[in-house]
């Protein structure tokens, strides 16, 4: 009372004034373009499409154009056109692929639901946040080529998550390969002589483990 509260307040501000010169807990400013904080691994901004192979990103997209994300996206910012033909994916199995895959990042609200609903681990959240542009119409509409980023990029931004995904994919593919091999063996047992050679070629991807790195070439 009688001004003691005011004096107390002045003491606190004086302490902070002095503290900001020597106490890093008090001066928490990070001067952005020069200094940057480390982004947390979970940080998400806009989605990107995972491709298995950096040299041929369009050929190795994990996306099979199933359009689940397009349907689930709350603000409806994804537009996909399914291919008419099938192309072999990273595992060599023939798959549909998106001929058009657009994300309007001016609409996208970074909710990550597309990532959660994707059964193929094909779409993931990016961490690029310096996306300012002078062109607000076309520059924010990202197409398939701009969205595709290699798997090792995914590893650099979300290492833990990517390792889990890769392990899971490897397990799935191994299981699939084993199943295919078992089926082939069964078939081979049934027709030992005629299709013995074909049985080995029947699962071409089985010999290649799930590519976490692009081939050395």
């Amino acid at each position, binding site marked *: *009372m*009688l*001004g003691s509260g*005011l004096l107390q*307040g*002045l003491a*606190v*501000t*004086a302490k*902070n*004034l002095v*503290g*900001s*010169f020597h106490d890093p807990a*008090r*001066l*928490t*400013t990070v*001067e952005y373009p020069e200094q940057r904080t480390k982004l947390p691994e979970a940080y998400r901004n806009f989605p990107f499409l995972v491709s298995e192979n950096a040299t041929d990103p369009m050929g190795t997209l994990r996306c099979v154009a199933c359009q689940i994300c397009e349907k689930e996206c709350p603000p409806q910012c994804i537009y996909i056109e399914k291919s008419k033909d099938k192309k072999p994916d990273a595992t060599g199995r023939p798959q549909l692929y998106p001929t058009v895959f657009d994300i309007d990042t001016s609409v996208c609200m970074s909710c990550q639901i597309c990532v959660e609903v994707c059964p193929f681990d094909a779409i993931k959240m990016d961490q690029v946040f310096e996306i300012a542009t002078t062109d607000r119409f076309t520059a924010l509409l990202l197409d398939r080529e701009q969205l595709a980023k290699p798997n090792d990029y995914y590893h650099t931004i979300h290492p833990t998550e990517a390792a889990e995904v890769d392990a899971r994919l490897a397990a799935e593919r191994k299981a699939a390969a084993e199943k295919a091999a078992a089926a082939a063996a069964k078939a081979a047992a049934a027709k030992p002589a005629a299709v013995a050679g074909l049985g080995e070629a029947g699962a071409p991807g089985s010999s290649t483990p799930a590519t976490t790195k692009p081939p050395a070439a």
Partner: protein
Amino acid sequence: MSAAWTNIATSAHSLLERLPLLARDFTTDWLPESARWLANSLITIATVVVAFASLFALLTIVERKVLARVQNRPGPNRVGIPFTKIKLFGLGQPLADGIKMLTKEDIVPRAADQVLHFLAPVALLAFSILTFAVIPFGRQLVPLELDAGVLYFFAAGAATELAVFMAGWASHNKYSLLAAMRALAQLISYELPLLLSIVPVVMLAGSLSTVGIVEKQAGWTWGFVPHWHVFTPWGAAGFAIFFVAALAESNRSPFDRPEAESELIAGHLTEYSGFKYALFFMAEYFGMCALCGMGVTLFLGGWQAPLPFLEIIPSYFWFAAKLLTLLFVFMWIRATLPRLRIDQLTRLAWKFLVPLALINLGVAVFWALTADWTGAIRAIRWIVAGALIVGPFVLIGRKLSSGIAPRTYRYAT
């Protein structure tokens, strides 16, 4: 030997002390006698204006820095020397701000009173510069030595309120108008405690001349307690009242009612932009500097050194140091306190500061009458004077703050 040294030291000191005057006389020496007076005056005016304009530039950045540091931010630190990477702790900021202000579009609302809208910042700046005329910046450095200097200061200062009103009214904006009303109410209320708080000083110094008042505060008790007015019971109370009233007169937080940004946008400045806004800003800082300068002159011993051996340092340096300290306290208070409501503000003036200032006047009379008490009886003088101030302070403060108190809270069971 030592006497010789003392002599040299004294002469060096006096040379340093009179350096500004010598420099001025040197420049105007070649002029005929009749023109020299005019030239000297012009040089004085130019020096004061340039000095305080640079101080203003410095203060803007310092204030932002202090506010920022109090708020745990680094503050503006980017602008340095252009086209280089040198940042100089952001000292180039005022320059950049100045360029920005100058090049911004000057918008005058269509319905505004064009002439008054233009005149308001000009008048404000003119009057606030006028107040510097009687402040003694150093031992011989007073631009205009007036017999009624203190009266002049407050006369010139009173006119600045008018400019605030003009700005608010001329803008033809409701926020500005409300701000103008608030400004009037606030300034009328605080003029009184401001003047009353300096009456004891004038009374005990026996002079309305600023130089005379400063010279009265020379000397030390026991060789280390300066005879500044603030070191007497009535002086301390008077200084506190003066300080609070000065905060209000210069529209500084917690009395920045007229431009309370959280309710009145920018008050009377709402419709001002560009250079006119900069003029307002400048005038406000000038007014603040002038009031602080007056506070230093009246209560803090003006250009007197705090300790005898420190007299070696020239007097104008001491004035500047005290002025900057007071300005820093202004900033510090701004960084800490929330704003008062307009009725609380006027109530504080009329029901608290004015009675206290009147009581303080009585204490000053007591002090003057007991000037010849010596020895142990002096302690009684101090006790009586102190009690006469603290008692009413507590009583009136209790009365004023009745109904507001920290509360305790209960919890649901």
